[in-house]
């Protein structure tokens, strides 16, 4: 079996497992996994920029929230169908990403982090400023009747789980195809040594911009999907916290691996979930776990597995 076949087989196995889990999981965990899959899509988008291209953004909440608000506001104020609204969210994320990308990529390193962070803060403040439409901090609920696509009610737990799985599977397929393509290899080359990539004749700005566009758009898909599946759009998702989360999930799961973001999200979600059962200082437990992982598994969960057991893992 070639490395490519093996990696497709492994990823399909993950999807089949998730499909089967739906039938055995209790309702509580079923909801959690659906949530985790959507957040993992967000993290996978983040990973294209951070893990594969080496661009550390601190502003991905902006792209997630743009997808979410693009979808939510068009349902709320334009009265269009949820499917069209979902597309609106993605298009909005694409446009915002393109603007931020072109401007932020004029900088690099720490300046790039700061610029992306500032853009995201502007996005958050814009949500509050236009409170008349966005309902500010409070946010707004997307009613069950507004969440029916092709007579499938996305408010139903089972439908919601499969919709999340569908988006997650699409995202796995797209990113896997992407990173194993020649384009993906050039992204890695840019991450490893941008000047060398340039001296091999690659227009590295174009590659970085493409990575930002893909990353931001996937994050927008996650935001629009999350809002639609869970029926709530709020300013909380535009805060800096939601820019840090995908970074943490990706670091935990393994930057520059396809499945890493999923396992990072899963791990952190349940770590917080379990820790909060034990104590109100649950973030302390989460923090200690994070420090331990960073000390002893620097490449993240999947990164360590790639290093020790499966060198072909994309």
């Amino acid at each position, binding site marked *: 079996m070639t490395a490519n076949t093996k990696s497709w087989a492994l990823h399909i196995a993950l999807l089949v497992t998730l499909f089967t889990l739906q039938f055995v999981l209790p309702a509580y965990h079923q909801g959690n996994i659906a949530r985790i899959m959507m957040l993992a899509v967000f993290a996978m988008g983040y990973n294209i920029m951070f893990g594969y291209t080496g661009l550390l953004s601190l502003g991905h909440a902006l792209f997630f929230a743009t997808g979410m608000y693009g979808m939510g506001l068009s349902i709320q104020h334009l009265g269009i169908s949820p499917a069209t609204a979902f597309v609106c969210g993605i298009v909005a994320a694409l446009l915002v990403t393109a603007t931020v990308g072109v401007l932020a990529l004029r900088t690099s390193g720490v300046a790039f982090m700061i610029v992306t962070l500032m853009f995201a803060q502007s996005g958050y403040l814009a949500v509050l400023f236009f409170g008349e439409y966005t309902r500010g901090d409070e946010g707004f609920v997307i009613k069950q009747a507004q969440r029916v696509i092709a007579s499938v009610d996305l408010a139903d737990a089972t439908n919601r789980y499969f919709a999340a799985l569908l988006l997650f599977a699409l995202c796995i397929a797209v990113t896997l195809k992407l990173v194993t393509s*020649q384009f993906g*290899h*050039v992204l*890695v*080359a840019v991450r*490893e*040594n941008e*000047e*060398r*990539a*340039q*001296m*091999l*004749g*690659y*227009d*590295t700005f174009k590659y970085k911009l493409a990575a930002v566009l893909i990353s931001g758009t996937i994050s927008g898909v996650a935001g629009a999907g999350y809002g639609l599946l869970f029926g709530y759009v709020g300013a909380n998702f535009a805060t800096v916290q939601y820019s840090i989360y995908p970074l943490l999930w990706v670091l935990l799961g393994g930057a520059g691996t396809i499945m890493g973001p999923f396992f990072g999200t899963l791990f952190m979600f349940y770590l917080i979930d379990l820790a909060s059962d034990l104590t109100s200082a649950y973030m302390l437990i989460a923090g200690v776990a994070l420090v331990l992982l960073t000390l002893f598994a620097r490449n993240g969960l999947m990164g360590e597995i790639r290093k020790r057991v499966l060198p072909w893992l994309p």
Partner: protein
Amino acid sequence: MAAINLLTTRGLSRSFGGIKAVHNVNFELPAGEIHALIGPNGAGKTTFVGLLCGRISADSGQVFFSNEEITALPVHKRIARGIGYTFQITSIFSKLSLYENVSLAVHRSSGDKRRDFDIQISEALDSVGLLDRAYQIAGDMSYGHQRLLEIAMGMAQKPKLLILDEPTQGLAQSEIAGFNALLKSIVERSTILLIEHNMDVVMEIADKITVLDFGEILAHGTPEEIHANEDVQAAYLGKNNA
């Protein structure tokens, strides 16, 4: 018959602060030769080739490549026109395998089928004697091997002009003979511009030599002419011309 110039510069200059690193250089490089660029440390050699391939932008002057002006073109467009460059300080993708390193060089420069890629990658690695290490991680290899990988990447681009910045630095004496033979085989398809400190290498393989000193061309000629040139000896040995 006059030789056709692959590369020409006219009045090429670049200063850093008050220092004229390259000053008013008129340089001609005919196709098909191994041309060595020598000069004392700080003579402006690396800056000069940086101006040729676009890593450094010129303050004034022009660069022509294959009879077209490329002065204003960004790096990647110059590389696409057929300039290959290998770095003085080894610059490879150290976390990737040798195969992937060379593959990045091959892919950009050819539109062939995948099977041909493999052949081209293998050829480039084989020519520097690294084929049996194709799947080793580049950063795990010795410095000398990394230098050879760097050259393999330059070759794999199949450039019209290959600029090598001190390629023998860090190579063992035993590897240098093989390196000379390698350059002689490359020149059949690529013109070579070589910055080199090892005078044995220069005298053995260069067809022509240009000597830079204080950013200006001090002398130009065959190895024998340069060897006999008093100005060159003065620049290298610090003699007074008075």
